[in-house]
């Protein structure tokens, strides 16, 4: 009966109830849309930029983070990487050996970054062969290299030319070699374009005399949402006695802290906007609930005189507010869900400068939406929290309601 009563009470002020619910719904739709878009674009940025640099997760030697040295390596054996391969969420694993060296050709020389990779695997991940502007992409058993376009121009090199790499190898050995250029790659980021030399992993292991070792195992998860779990799994798998104090499992936030920070800032901004929006709507909800309470003081008095205990009266008001909030949430979800789902499967396509910039970076120029139950649950919880907040004062008023004054129709608190 109390539920029936609460429900019918809602419709005594039809317009007010609907307006309040609609305002809640609108806030929910906007917030949900905004947050889904934000999280979607973060995921996109993370995945895209991971592709072209650090990957999502890397296994490194514990000292490598500090030293970036060719001395601090991990085994490149199947046995070592087997635990990671067995994980369901791991989509691909790329061994990389990276070190600095001096590149010389003719009378010019320059410090470069040599990246030993498994060409086919890298290409599958980041489609790097598409970026070859001259010559061909390398194969695993080639003894030739790919070179950044900027670097090639600086050293006045073309496909078919040779260059000398000179540096320090494993355990202080000298690393030196003469390599033919098989292809020239254009990297959108100038830092890379002027710096990078790709070579097959075996060739780089020979150059640096590392034997079967790598400086990083780059690990990519099937779903970005599974990153945390995978990270935890990897940490557990690589914390055995033998490997302890040897393997460092790092995620993209650790590998690219600037980006992590930028995302955190952007997210904070979005969440602030969201709370601002809910704050405004919250005032409306508060006003409605307060009015619902104050204008019915006499009625409450009569109910109490005829035997309704205070707790049930409080319950009645909570029920009424819950109905309004649920109405808002329901309308909001009914409108918001199709919207988010639609844009998840049909991402907004960007045009103009932004699009070109993204294309240049090798990214698809889209604004994807993240479809995550957590974002929905967040919104629902926020509305419920908002309602509870709005209820505090009205409930206190009822709690302090004086029967005699209420019956006389007054709203005074004793």
């Amino acid at each position: 009966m109390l539920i029936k009563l609460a429900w019918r009470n809602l419709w005594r002020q039809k317009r007010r109830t609907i307006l309040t619910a609609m305002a809640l719904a609108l806030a929910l739709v906007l917030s949900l849309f905004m947050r889904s878009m934000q999280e979607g674009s973060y995921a996109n940025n993370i995945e895209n930029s991971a592709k072209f640099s650090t990957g999502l997760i890397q296994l490194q030697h514990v000292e490598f983070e500090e030293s970036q040295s060719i001395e601090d390596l991990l085994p490149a054996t199947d046995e070592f990487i087997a635990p990671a391969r067995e994980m369901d969420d791991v989509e691909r694993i790329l061994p990389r050996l990276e070190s600095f060296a001096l590149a010389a050709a003719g009378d010019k020389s320059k410090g470069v970054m040599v990246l030993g990779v498994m060409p086919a695997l890298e290409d599958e991940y980041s489609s790097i062969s598409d970026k070859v502007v001259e010559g061909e992409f390398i194969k695993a058993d080639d003894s030739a290299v790919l070179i950044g376009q900027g670097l090639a121009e600086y050293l006045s090199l073309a496909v078919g030319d040779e260059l000398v790499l000179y540096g320090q190898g494993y355990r202080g050995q000298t690393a030196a070699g003469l390599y033919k250029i098989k292809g020239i790659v254009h990297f959108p980021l100038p830092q890379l374009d002027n710096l990078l030399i790709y070579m097959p992993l075996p060739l780089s292991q020979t150059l640096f005399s590392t034997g079967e070792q790598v400086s990083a195992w780059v690990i990519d998860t099937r779903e970005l949402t599974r990153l945390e779990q995978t990270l935890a799994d990897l940490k557990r798998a690589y914390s055995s006695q033998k490997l302890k104090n040897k393997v460092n499992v790092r995620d993209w936030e650790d590998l690219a802290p600037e980006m992590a920070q930028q995302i955190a800032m952007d997210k904070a901004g979005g969440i602030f906007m969201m709370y601002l929006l809910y704050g405004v709507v919250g005032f409306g909800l508060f006003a409605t609930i307060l009015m619902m309470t104050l204008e019915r003081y006499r009625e409450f008095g009569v109910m109490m005189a005829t035997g309704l205990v205070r707790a049930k009266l409080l319950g009645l008001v909570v029920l009424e507010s819950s109905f309004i909030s649920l109405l808002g949430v329901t309308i909001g979800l009914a409108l918001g869900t199709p919207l988010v789902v639609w844009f998840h499967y049909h991402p907004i396509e960007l045009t103009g400068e932004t699009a070109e910039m993204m294309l240049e970076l090798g990214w698809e120029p889209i604004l994807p939406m993240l479809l995550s139950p957590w974002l929905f649950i967040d919104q629902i919880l926020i509305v419920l929290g908002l309602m509870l907040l709005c209820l505090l004062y009205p409930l206190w008023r009822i709690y302090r309601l004086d029967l005699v004054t209420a019956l006389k129709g007054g709203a005074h608190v004793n």
Partner: protein
Amino acid sequence: MSIQTTQLRKTYNQDTDFPVHAVKQLDLSIEQGEFVAVMGPSGSGKTTLLNMIGGIDIPSAGTVIIDGIDICALKDKALIAFRRDNIGFIFQDYSLLPVLTALENVEFVMQLQGHSEKECRERAITLLDQVGLGEQLHKIPSKLSGGQQQRVAVARALAPSPRFVMADEPTANLDAKSTAELLDIMQQLNEKEGTTFIFSTHDPRVIKRARRVIVFEDGQLTEDRAQ
């Protein structure tokens, strides 16, 4: 079974420079089965008195003893339960819940007592029949006339089978015909069911129908007569 007040007093704004002595030193005794009118001009303290003996207002001094229970000593929750089970209220403005039908209004207070839905339904229908609203069970208050609404209120007041019914100026908003109808019903219930009615009024036509009249002036009892 009776209501007994001793040295009952109510002073509003007690601690200010202008205290209002709404009820002064009242000793009164009302037995079960009585049909009592409390008469007096506006502001004489009738509402205050009914509120105090109905367990709604707290006296400034003195006691109200109903069936040997000092209701002023009851805690909030116990008082509400006591009131619910022993005292029915009828208000001048009917005060029905606007969103509930006549039937639901009556059922609601019974459900608060913890009766089963079936019991509530049956008794509510019987009561509404008794007050002549057997045909109007499913109408909401705004679809009923003032007299009809007040009769629903009588049914509601009687639903929990209270020993006493307090009616504060129940006919003040009613026309002559409705007033007569309402009094007929109250009198019938009093005579047949033995329900005690204590009602305040300043309407001479209503006073005529009472069997005992308590005259109140300026918070004091000036006359207490049977008729």
